[in-house]
């Protein structure tokens, strides 16, 4: 890996392309976005992730110009665009419904924005052809939107929004209408196109897998606030809150009271009937502070006998086995009554699976496998 890592957000001197400065948006009494600050850098593939109603769509619509912030500034490349009408912004959007004009052909749809700029005819047609080529739609140029398939419509919408070479492309749940296989293929296609064109992409999605796949950074939102803004791997491995740990990926959350050991190690007392768990965290916790241990199922090992060197080991009975093909999820009921999920890669054929229902098993993980989160 010799290529320089793309991470402008770690570079103190880098100038962000988009800055949200203390942005608040209210709809009547309802506060959709509350006092939010966010920087997005050039050439980023930035994802806004959250459940419906968290404010991610409002953020995007403010960038596009369909909503005005109630207070605060939105700065794009040094210009405050908070109150500019949508048709005067260097920003284009790909709509969730694609919003293809049904009365215009694929070619005319892509040319629509270019024609508004009163470009010369040959320039328009060259640009449209370029876009058709980029999205592999040359064959369908003369068709109307209802004469092509869903996946092709999605590509027309992308081509149309990219045709004006915007500084910033907004994608509102762009893959929501596609089936799973096509969606996965298109995710990689999107990343490819983003890299080729060098455009900054901001994508809104509620699908955490999609955000993890495509984005350079993800902002997890909840109730109009940013909960965590980080790279996908850091979000997954180092969630800063119970909310993020729970929202991104599968997780076991164990409620406990902390007591400090040496360094950043803590003993976590979580059940009268079980030994304390050992975990590490850089946040200082006081003695007896309540906290959570978040541990991903695939980081838990499962064995018939108690492993000798494990920092944490608990015993229970297999209650359910979810067979997913490449892996299996074991739901293990502990003696204390709580349920822990453990995931094991199926490296062997199923006939030789080690554990069955009602088998007594040991679950174990290292002190650093989980994350300890303050309340």
């Amino acid at each position: 890996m010799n290529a320089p890592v793309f991470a402008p957000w770690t570079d103190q001197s880098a100038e962000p392309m988009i800055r949200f400065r203390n942005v608040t948006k209210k709809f009547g009494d309802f506060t959709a976005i509350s006092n939010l600050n966010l920087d997005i850098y050039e050439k980023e593939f930035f994802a806004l992730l959250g459940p419906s109603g968290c404010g991610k769509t409002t953020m995007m619509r403010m960038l596009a110009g369909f909503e005005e912030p109630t207070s605060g500034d939105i700065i794009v490349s040094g210009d405050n665009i908070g109150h500019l009408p949508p048709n005067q912004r260097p920003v284009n959007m790909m709509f969730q419904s694609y919003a293809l004009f049904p009365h215009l052909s694929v070619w005319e749809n892509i040319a629509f924005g270019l024609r508004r700029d009163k470009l010369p005819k040959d320039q328009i047609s060259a640009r449209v052809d370029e876009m058709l080529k980029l999205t592999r739609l040359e064959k369908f140029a003369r068709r109307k939107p209802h004469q092509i398939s869903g996946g092709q419509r999605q590509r027309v919408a992308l081509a149309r929004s990219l045709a004006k070479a915007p500084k910033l492309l907004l994608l509102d749940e762009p893959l929501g209408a596609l089936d799973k296989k096509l969606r996965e293929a298109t995710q990689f296609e999107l990343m490819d196109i983003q890299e080729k064109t060098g455009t900054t992409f901001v994508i809104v999605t509620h699908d955490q897998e999609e955000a993890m796949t495509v984005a350079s950074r993800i902002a997890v939102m909840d109730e109009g606030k940013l909960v965590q803004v980080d790279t996908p791997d850091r979000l997954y491995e180092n969630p800063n809150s119970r909310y993020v740990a729970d929202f991104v990926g599968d997780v076991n959350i164990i409620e406990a009271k902390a007591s400090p050991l040496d360094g950043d190690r803590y003993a976590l007392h979580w059940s009268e009937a079980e030994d304390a768990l050992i975990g590490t965290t850089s946040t200082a916790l006081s003695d007896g502070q309540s906290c959570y241990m978040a541990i991903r199922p695939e980081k838990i090992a499962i064995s018939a006998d108690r492993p000798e060197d494990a920092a944490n080991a608990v015993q229970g009975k297999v209650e359910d086995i979810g067979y997913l093909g490449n892996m299996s999820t074991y739901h293990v009921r502990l003696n204390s009554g709580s349920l822990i999920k453990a995931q094991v890669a199926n490296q062997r054929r199923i006939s030789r699976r080690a554990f069955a229902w009602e088998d007594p098993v040991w679950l174990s993980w290292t002190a650093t496998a989980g994350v300890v989160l303050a309340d």
Partner: protein
Amino acid sequence: MNRLSPFNIVSLTLGFAFLYIPMLILVIYSFNGGRLVTVWSGFSTKWYGELFQNEAFLDAALVTLKVAVISSTIAAVLGTMAAYVLVRGGRFLGRTLFSGMIYAPLVMPEVITGLSLLLLFIGIGLDRGVLTIVLAHTTFAMCYVSVVVSSRLVTFDRSLEEAALDLGATPFETFRLVTLPIIAPAVISGWLLAFTLSLDDLVIASFTSGPSSTTLPIKIYSAVRLGVSPEINALSTIMIGIVAVGVITASLVSKQQLIRAKRDEQEAARTE
């Protein structure tokens, strides 16, 4: 599931017989040779000949057509504006009054609409003639147009307009290039509705027309008040014929479009 029970077959047969037999009799007896309209005395087209000799009828037909074309065209424009205001206008002072004035003429008895307009025209000293009928017809027809167009606008995907703005179109360009072409079918059907209502109207036209501007329904009404007349049968047949051709053509065209849309969809699925 798709086999009709005898009861349903009987209902359909009787229902449509009831709807169509009176008109059928009218059409058949318009080709009757005798003056007695209920006694068949041989095939003849002489009443059509007499109808086309009758200048009063031809004049009235001309006035009616003129009124219908002008009033339905103005009504289409005003009705579309009104629909746009109702669906997209947001809040403005007197919005409730406005929507009330759009819906009220639809349920207002024609005698009241006619009477009130006549009293207005007399009040402001406007001589009754083609102009007053046009004003009257435009007023109630624009309400029908706005209902037809606003029901289309309600289901209109707003992201289409947002997409046009996003791609740099001004609000006016957005309306001209995106909204209008998409709602055009609704505007056209609104126009057709307005046109037919104007052609049909007897009551309001009676109140608002002057001696020099008799419309066809007024002419027909004064002729049939005295009883059935073979000339009117001929005229009715022509009018029924025009409507039938129009409606059948329209439904064939829309069926064709449906078939084509379905074929396109299948083709699209294949090219995936």
